[in-house]
């Protein structure tokens, strides 16, 4: 679960570099700053699950779980665990004030119907066209869950991921080589190195993490993008 941006053997990896950029928690913390009061949000596994801890005071976000929970709270302590109240990962959870329960068809009506402001997902790859691959590694056991509905339906799809994979290969690519979850669906990418927005179908570098240079981002990114740092950046 710790980041490893360098690798011993992978040829296209950058040379062993000093550790720079955000930690996994740092990615979650940066992303959480962009959530707005009243947003309805669905979280994928991995870094996205860390986001709620960093939501700023005064910002109330409604967490949606695919199995029909609106207003999900933190995981339940063992003495309150109830098999009738779980998240989409089947862990016992709590509810926050004002929570509501719906069936699975209504839950995905919320997703597909554009009533979800943002879904925050991990990724295997994101392409420069906004394609996302995050559900299946060929050769492994296929299972899709709600991933394809989320990327097809949410108003915004924000990816929270490490900039390169464990072998040091860029995960922002010109074209995904892994099976797609959805096409042209990603709207933002938050990594340990940078923040990208898709605007008008083009990937744009909006921020570098503290201590990270645009050159380093360029070096570790295999996708075409526009550099739009500083004053040009606007959410």
């Amino acid at each position, binding site marked *: 679960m710790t980041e490893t941006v360098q690798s011993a053997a992978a040829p296209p990896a950058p040379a062993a570099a000093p550790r720079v950029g955000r930690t996994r928690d740092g990615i979650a913390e940066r992303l959480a700053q962009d959530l707005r009061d009243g947003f309805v949000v669905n979280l994928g596994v991995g870094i996205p699950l860390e986001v709620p801890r960093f939501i700023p005071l005064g910002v109330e976000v409604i967490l949606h*779980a*695919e*199995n*029909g*929970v609106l207003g999900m*709270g933190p995981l339940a302590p063992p*003495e*309150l*665990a*109830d*098999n*009738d*109240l*779980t998240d989409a990962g*089947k862990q*016992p959870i*709590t*509810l926050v004030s004002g929570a509501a*329960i*719906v*069936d*699975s*068809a209504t*839950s*995905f009506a919320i*997703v*597909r119907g554009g009533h979800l402001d943002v879904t925050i997902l991990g990724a295997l790859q994101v392409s420069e066209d906004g394609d996302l691959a995050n559900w*299946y590694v060929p050769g492994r*056991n*296929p*299972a*899709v*869950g*709600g*991933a*394809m*509905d989320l990327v*097809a*339906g949410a108003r915004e799809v924000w990816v929270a991921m490490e900039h390169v994979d464990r072998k040091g290969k860029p995960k922002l690519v010109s074209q995904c080589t892994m*099976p*797609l*979850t*959805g*096409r042209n669906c990603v709207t933002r990418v938050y990594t340990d190195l940078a923040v990208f927005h898709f605007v008008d179908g083009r990937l744009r570098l909006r921020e570098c993490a503290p201590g990270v240079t645009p050159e380093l981002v360029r070096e570790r990114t295999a996708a075409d993008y526009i550099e739009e740092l500083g004053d040009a950046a606007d959410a």
Partner: protein
Amino acid sequence: MIDKFREDVLAVVDIVPSGACIAIGGFGSSGRPDTLIDALCDLGKRDLHLVVNNVGADFLGVGRMLVEGRLRRVTASFPILQEFYDEYFAGKVELELIPQGTLAERLRAGGAGIPAFFTPSGAGTMLTDGTFVDGYNPDGTPASHLPPRETRVFNGREHVLEYGIVADFALVKAHQGDRKGNLRFRYSARNFNPLAGMAGRHTFAEVEQLVEVDELHPDDIHLPGVFVDDVIVALPTSPKQPVLPTGPVP
């Protein structure tokens, strides 16, 4: 007088023939109708086509059916049992893998008399373009693929045509139910249960509590009795499930 309550579970579910298509509620073990599933297993039913979100992480419920070799095909979004995949790759059981929201909507559509609908979910992916292998030969080579979906552009985006699912039978688990078949679910144990119940030509419901008729207010019924054919009382929850607190959820 309409009285859908039945004491003898085995007699009730024995009308399910081997080879049937069965929609099952539940999300993992939450809201999973174990009593009905166990009855089907105890009766020796085989060659079943299940429509169910998860195969489950344990050997209860659908997992039991799997390890006992009772399954012919599974329509699901998230089977996670390794033994299921072993059987799948060995050509012993087929997997129709579909997005979870599409699964929920296909069940509702089937129950609602909607034969087909367009959805953006899965468009442009291997689950809809004809490349996903839904069945293997014993030698591990692909035997068949999910059919490519008809596509159409609405509002500038590609959508795929999906079909409503009408199952021969449905198994549903509810928290409370009455003799008219009116059901009420508890928290997220609701999940796929109302949808499976709508999609079944014949729907069995197991309830944790059999309540008096009219104890459930008409506005508080999550699935009305018109969708339910038989009501049985669920056996006590298996010890593998956490004990349910009776107090309010914080």
